[in-house]
């Protein structure tokens, strides 16, 4: 087979592109995923609310409703196979007055139509199951199937598992042009030229621009930024459920939720922005604080680790866009996947891969292994088993990140896996080293040294995230700068 020919090329290494790659690897098929960043899960998939929505909210009979409900049902099993932490913590959508009560009761009807379990609960029970709530929280829609998952851990796990099963990944490669030539698509990147029978456009924020390279886009992405505040894991019982606010004419308010590492996330805001604008600003952060205080009064802002922002791929249509181009069959758009995109991701991956299977008449990959090798950690193994691991590989005893208890052994493993970490942020996303309150003050340097040693590159070329972000870009005394 021609070197640069692929049955399928997926553009975009976010949670949707990587999920499609993973589910495609169930078949005998030659697939390349192209991602312009230095790692997968770098844009929307690295900065969002990290919620696996139950599916009561989307309007019935929409793609959102279908994929959300299905994805939610799949998530537990998927996370077990991929060894990604997933917690079904349940969500509470909080009402503060009679009007909210009406809205919540309507949403419960909608939940029924979507096939989602949702229960209306009154103040007494509400405060019993979530004692931190503000006294003014009167009612709630309780959706027990709502959960939480780390969006970047899930994305990376999808990609690693896809690669374990034969899918190829090209990073730091940008698609410049797409043409149709007979049955094939010709894709030019800044590094190479490819041919493919099927192209999946999972380019998130840039999916309209990618489509534009081939044909007049049928949709437009109007990016909307969400800013967040992240708190430390100071108390595992502070807030157990994902707390949403009852939607009103003004908007959806903000949420407070634990994460799978028992940090707490507060946000998001929802403002028009540029696609690449992930900056935060103080008026928005103040808005988050003020709004969140309606849910929980005394939020311990002394526990703040950082603020951050992510940009959603908000389309100019009301639903997910998951369809083949009518002008250029074989070009499949998976676009406008904003919330509940994370929850929907396994279902979208399965659906799109099945579509391609029919289209290309693919055979089953009999060697497909849905299980990703476990990531060993102190918390997942427990003290005794972890001790046995140290006796086998002493690097697991050498703790590098003292806030999150991450060992050298874990970092080395994360580098050498498929879709391995190659940057400080790559380690952070996979293992949480540097994710703690000191924000890497104590471990970042050691992490860089391990990356340099394991990848056999000079220390001053180790990146923080993308190209151009060398951590040690200046001078070491007595050493020639190798850059």
């Amino acid at each position, binding site marked *: 087979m021609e070197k640069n020919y692929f049955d399928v090329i997926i553009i975009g290494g976010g949670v949707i592109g990587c999920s499609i790659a993973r589910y495609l690897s169930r078949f005998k098929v030659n697939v390349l995923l192209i991602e312009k960043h230095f790692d997968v899960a770098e844009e929307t998939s690295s900065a969002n609310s990290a919620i696996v929505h139950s599916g009561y909210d989307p309007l019935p009979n929409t793609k959102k409703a279908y994929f959300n409900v299905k994805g939610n049902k799949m998530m537990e099993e998927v996370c077990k196979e991929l060894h990604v932490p997933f917690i079904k913590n349940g969500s509470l959508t909080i009402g503060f007055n009679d009007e909210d009560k009406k809205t919540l009761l309507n949403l419960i009807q909608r939940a029924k139509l979507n096939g989602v379990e949702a229960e209306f609960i009154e103040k007494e029970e509400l405060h019993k199951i979530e004692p931190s709530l503000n006294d003014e929280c009167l009612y709630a829609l309780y959706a027990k199937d709502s959960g939480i998952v780390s969006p970047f851990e899930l994305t990376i796990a999808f990609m690693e598992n896809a690669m374990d099963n034969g899918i190829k990944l090209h990073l730091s490669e940008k698609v410049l042009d797409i043409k149709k030539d007979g049955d094939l698509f010709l894709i030019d990147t800044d590094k190479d030229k490819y041919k493919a029978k099927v192209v999946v456009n999972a380019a998130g924020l840039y999916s309209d621009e990618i489509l534009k390279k081939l044909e007049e886009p049928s949709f437009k992405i109007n990016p909307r930024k969400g800013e967040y*505040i*992240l708190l430390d894991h100071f108390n595992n019982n502070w807030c157990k459920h994902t707390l949403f606010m009852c939607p009103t004419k003004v908007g959806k308010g903000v949420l407070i939720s634990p994460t799978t590492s028992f940090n707490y996330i507060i946000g998001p805001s929802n403002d028009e922005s540029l696609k*690449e604008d*992930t*900056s*935060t*600003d*103080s008026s928005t*952060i103040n808005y988050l604080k003020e709004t969140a205080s309606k849910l929980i009064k005394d939020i311990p802002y*002394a526990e*703040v*680790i*950082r*603020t*951050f922002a992510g940009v959603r791929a908000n389309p100019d249509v009301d639903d997910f866009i998951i369809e083949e181009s009518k002008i250029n069959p074989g070009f499949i758009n998976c676009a406008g996947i904003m919330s509940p995109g994370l929850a929907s991701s396994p279902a979208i991956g399965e659906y799109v891969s099945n579509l391609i299977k029919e289209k290309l008449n693919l055979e089953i990959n009999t060697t497909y292994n849905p299980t990703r090798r476990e990531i060993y950690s*102190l918390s997942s193994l427990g*003290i*005794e088993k*972890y*001790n*046995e691991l*140290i*006796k086998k590989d*002493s*690097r697991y*005893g*050498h*703790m590098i990140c*003292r806030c999150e*208890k991450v*060992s*050298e052994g874990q970092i080395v493993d994360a580098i050498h896996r498929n879709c391995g970490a190659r940057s400080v942020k790559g380690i952070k996303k996979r293992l949480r080293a540097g994710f703690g*309150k*000191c*924000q890497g*003050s*104590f471990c*970042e*340097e050691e992490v860089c040294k391990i990356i340099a040693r394991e990848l056999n590159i000079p220390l001053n070329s180790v990146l*923080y*995230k*993308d*190209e*151009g*972000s*060398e*951590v*040690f*870009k*200046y*001078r*070491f*005394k*007595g*050493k020639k700068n190798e850059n």
Partner: protein
Amino acid sequence: MKINNKTYDIVIIGGGSAGLSAAKKAYEEGISSILIVERNNELGGILNQCIHNGFGLHKFKKELTGPEYAYEYIEFIKENNIDYFLNTLVLSINSKDKLIVCSSSEEGIINISYKCLIFSAGCNERTSGQIMIPGERPNGVFTAGLAQKLLNIDGYLVGKNVYILGSGDIGLIMARRMTLEGANVIGVSEIMPYSNGLNRNIVQCLNDYNIPLRLHNTVIKIHGKNQLEGITICDVDDSLKPIEGREKFIKCDTLLLSIGLYPFNAMLKNSGAKVNTETKGAWVDQNLETTLDSVFSCGNVLHVHDLVDYVSDEGEIAGENAAKLIKYGRKTLLKTIFTKHNSNLGYLLPNEIKVYKDLNEVSFSFRVKKPISKGEILFKDGENIIKRSVKNDLIPSEMVKIKLNNLDFNNLNELSVEVNEI
């Protein structure tokens, strides 16, 4: 594979200035079964990266560098064969069973039982995330202490055009240090109307090098996607809010943060010790014992100090009292007095006084909340003044230490400390 078990009379978590002096003092008190657990690859803690002088004026009556100061203690530890583990991280404290769980490459997981535990794990620097500086999150924003470590231990200069936020001592020291290494230090912003560093550091590290200090000014935005490209600074009003129209863009490749330290007390807190909400360190009595039985806390993990000499003093108090508890057991408790302070104090230690027979001396430390040019310091039992002293130029960056002695604490009903401007 079995988990290793070890037993010591005194286990010390952290081999920096507090832990080293605690070990020395406990040894001098006759305890020889002592273990220091240190996560780094050498003893000495942060002193190793403090290559400037000015240490030891109180303790040794001479001016030492950080490593020289540490050496005085490390030699003692080595000469007397006091045990220490390096590259070993404590994972948890189990105060009920009086043991700690550690991890290291050589030993794997180790359970270490203690009679007394001294917690001296030091402090952390506050980060840009914690104070929520708006803008981007590029590479090039460092805490001053990390920049100091990179420069003085690894020989790496973090940047060429440097701005410093916060006038804490490490920031001031680094302003001079980076200038000497050839970096261009553009200026220092301090949000408060006064500096948070020692006066001598303002003079010797900024004024001597013509580095401007902007008071009532802060960084309101960080610019740059991958690498820092610049910052926006702005004057603030009396409520510390940025004043519109007073913004200024500063081009720089590095922002150093010297915006405060806080005790790295999470582990002790997680094991159930009561926390002093003002210091964020442990709640302690006059012997520096926490609310956990036989667990002591001292140094910067208890409250952040400005002079290492005082850290050593505090280590000695913890070391001596741990040793005495082991040698003589616990004395009969007559009563407990909780200490209080007025609103001019940021905090007061100890939080409580355990009154035993013959207790007649207690050391107090506190900081004022705002500068007081002439202050009257009162120790009171109700309305009854026990001790009065007057001090000039009280500032938040300088800790005040006062001893109450020749006093029968059993006669006291309560104890409060007031500072009043006169």
